[in-house]
């Protein structure tokens, strides 16, 4: 475990901070104020908010005043914002449904800003595969380094699990079971909950959001994409009961077109590993199991990740490991991998990894920003660090990009297609750049 040794990594570069332009930072509400803003606070010498754009300029002005953003300017139009040379990185933190209509023109206008180097977009990068493909192409042509907020990849628990698997602590993976809950999509809907997340096509639903994050995390941990998959998508609750804050039913029913259950099973490219997945909408009410359970079984041991709600990317998980180091046994090539000092070969090792005080909601986004500044300022002094990279894939270093997002979109597309066609699909080619 050395990727988390950071004492010598300078976070005060002897260079100007990355100037950040936000589309969607609103001091009063929304996702960015709760996660992106506190992250930048902690890296104040590496990131500096210099520009805000929102359809109503009053919102930007109020936010600048509330957060005392002394270096930030409120821009009246998308064009003025996108072409301002005071921005090195643009962050898109608005409803997925408006990603396409904002990002495409923005990239176009941004051609007037020679300083733009980074485009950071919140998952789920547009509401359809076509939109995602177009945005990806436009960004590639524009020549910016892209970032997608698949921040589950930055969770300390996911990185530790990835490390244990890659170092042979569970031998070869031979089966995986995932069961999770996806909050809003059950029998009841809080009256204040925004309508659009219940309408299919807005890029926010059980499959795209809850399943999307979790399956990306699974592929990242196991370093493998899927080869064959089958999915069944359910909308067994076409109408939800409206409830007030205290949970009392208001006696009013509202339509729901997004799914409320997903059955997904498939095999991993590496090792033809069987994966079984069941995502249930609605309040996490499971009485006898945790609401997020990821069980990874291997020839030499078992790994388990548990959380209280079905959102792996924003939960403070608990990781359980029990197994024997595969390398305790002579490797195929006869020589023996270095053993942990003080461990007897073949005897079971037990590890429980839980950080009681870790705030996963802010923490994972903070570590995503940290990986961007590590890359920008090459704080780890990596020799010949390329100026850009297309995708993180399954590396420990770096951060997920729009290509990683595109590959995930293709998997989600095949989930819906498998359900619609009633067939098991071969998806082993979706992870190549050009489809």
């Amino acid at each position, binding site marked *: *475990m050395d990727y*988390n*040794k*950071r*004492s*010598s*990594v*300078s*976070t*005060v570069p002897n260079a100007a901070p990355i100037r950040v332009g936000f589309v969607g930072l609103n001091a009063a509400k929304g996702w960015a104020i709760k996660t992106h803003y*506190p992250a930048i*606070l*902690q*890296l*104040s*010498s590496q990131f500096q908010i210099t520009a805000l754009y929102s359809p109503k300029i009053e919102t930007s002005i109020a936010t600048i005043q509330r*957060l*005392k953003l*002394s270096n930030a300017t409120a821009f009246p139009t998308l064009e003025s914002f996108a072409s301002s040379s005071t921005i090195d990185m643009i962050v898109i933190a608005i409803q997925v449904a408006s990603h396409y209509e904002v990002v495409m023109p923005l990239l176009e206008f941004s051609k007037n800003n020679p300083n733009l180097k980074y485009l950071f977009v919140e998952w789920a990068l547009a509401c359809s595969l076509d939109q995602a493909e177009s945005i990806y192409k436009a960004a590639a042509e524009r020549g910016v380094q892209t970032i997608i907020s698949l921040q589950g990849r930055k969770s*300390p628990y996911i990185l530790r699990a990835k490390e244990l698997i890659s170092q042979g602590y569970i031998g070869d993976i031979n089966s995986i079971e995932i069961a999770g809950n996806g909050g809003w999509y059950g029998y009841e809907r809080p009256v204040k909950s925004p309508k659009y997340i219940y309408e299919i096509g807005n890029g926010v639903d059980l499959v795209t959001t809850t399943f999307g994050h979790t399956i990306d995390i699974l592929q990242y941990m196991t370093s493998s994409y899927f080869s064959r998959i089958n999915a069944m998508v359910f909308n067994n609750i076409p109408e939800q009961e409206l409830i007030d804050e205290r949970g009392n039913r208001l006696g009013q029913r509202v339509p729901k077109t997004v799914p409320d259950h997903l059955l997904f099973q498939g095999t991993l490219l590496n090792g033809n590993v069987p994966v079984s997945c069941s995502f249930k909408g609605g309040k996490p009410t499971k009485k006898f199991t945790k609401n997020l359970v990821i069980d990874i079984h291997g020839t030499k041991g078992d790994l388990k990740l548990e959380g209280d709600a079905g959102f792996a990317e924003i939960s403070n998980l*608990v990781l*359980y490991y*029990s197994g024997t180091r595969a390398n305790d046994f002579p490797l195929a090539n006869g020589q023996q991998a270095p053993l*942990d000092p*003080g*461990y*007897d070969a073949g*005897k*079971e*090792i*037990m*590890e*429980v*990894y*839980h*950080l*009681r*005080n*870790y*705030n996963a909601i*802010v*923490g994972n986004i*903070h*570590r995503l920003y940290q990986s961007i500044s590590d890359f920008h300022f090459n*704080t780890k002094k990596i020799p010949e660090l390329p100026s850009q990279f297309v995708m993180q894939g399954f590396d420990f270093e770096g951060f997920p990009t729009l290509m990683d997002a595109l590959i995930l979109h293709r998997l989600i597309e095949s989930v819906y297609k498998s359900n619609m066609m009633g067939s098991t699909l071969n998806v082993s080619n979706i992870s190549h750049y050009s489809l």
Partner: protein
Amino acid sequence: MNTNVPIFSSPVRDLPRSFEQKHLAVVDAFFQTYHVKPDFIARSPGRVNLIGEHIDYCDFSVLPLAIDVDMLCAVKILDEKNPSITLTNADPKFAQRKFDLPLDGSYMAIDPSVSEWSNYFKCGLHVAHSYLKKIAPERFNNTPLVGAQIFCQSDIPTGGGLSSAFTCAAALATIRANMGKNFDISKKDLTRITAVAEHYVGVNNGGMDQATSVYGEEDHALYVEFRPKLKATPFKFPQLKNHEISFVIANTLVKSNKFETAPTNYNLRVIEVTVAANALATRYSVALPSHKDNSNSERGNLRDFMDAYYARYENQAQPWNGDIGTGIERLLKMLQLVEESFSRKKSGFTVHEASTALNCSREEFTRDYLTTFPVRFQVLKLYQRAKHVYSESLRVLKALKMMTSATFHTDEDFFTDFGRLMNESQASCDKLYECSCIETNQICSIALANGSFGSRLTGAGWGGCTIHLVPSGANGNVEQVRKALIEKFYNVRYPDLTDEELKDAIIVSKPALGTCLYEQ
């Protein structure tokens, strides 16, 4: 006892001896970095422990002393709309840090998953912030702390209590910066709030380091007790006929980062002794109280078991008050119970065996004991760890008697008796607690063969410092020990050490003043 943390201001003469040179150097370094002079310097010394290792988190007493090395934090208070903290460290290995303070007065986030030097500063900042919210809620509940530029400089060797000195200095600096020059904080309060500071970063330590750093007194060692309540009693070494008592500190120069090795070393030991206490409680069907406030022993510790056992079987309803006589008798009884309960399982307890010993399921055991801090192990060596804690606490009581009340026929008797306790402690740390290392063992044997009467590791172990009881004064043999160590260890193990590094590696400890403020 409830004196306040001392505040010195130039040009007052009674500055602690070695403080003057360092003070000028740090002010100068501050100016080079920030081109402005600091407002004040918060200082907290390192420490060594004569005897009583790895027993503070079981609430048994220890014999530490603050030493003449320290962490200095020079601070310039800033008056900014968006307050931020900039941290620079004299040691280039620790890169510069800058972060803004939340405008709404909420706590600064600490990422416990990374090994990062400024996290220790943030621990100090956090406990100070929560102290300020308690004593002045209207001022600190929803307005941010003041910004500041800070320069940190330390000459504390690894294992010399560096992280605790840093959190004490950081907490003191934060309180001083936000409450102004005339605010006084008691040693008791500073110790209490910093005792649990490092838990926020993931190190489950006891209270010895902070107590020693804060309560340090020149020319005095300390008898630090945690029960019935926190108390630090200074004492002078006894006057011998024609020798002085000196403790030579030799740094093994083996760097072992307490945080990074916590899951297999430090934090694992805390879990092992806690499980041992509860296994004993289950076997002798007594119940342990749980201390909600202190995350070391949320589930009771080995001292709790001793009290509960005596309440149930020896009609002693009152817990042990620290009296040496009764202490020795009870600790001998505990060692007997440890033999009875665990000696058949010297190979250690697997998770299954431990849950059976605690009469609970695997899942329950995992949830109750293994999710407090990250941990990794094959077996839990309850026998060896419990035996160390009780025997080491017994040695501290005997050592205290020698230091404070015993009379000695000849100087030789003192050095031999006290030395024997230190050597027994080293053997127990090495064989039972397994927290020594090859370098420590080499240094100890060389020192013992060249004039030291008692040699052992000091501090958490796994590298860090060693301490040696050496008669000094006219016919002392401090130099003989130093020469032997240089020839037989340092030149062999670290041939390309500079003279400067060699000088720092072996020092004669002079008990130093505790945490203090120096107004510029």
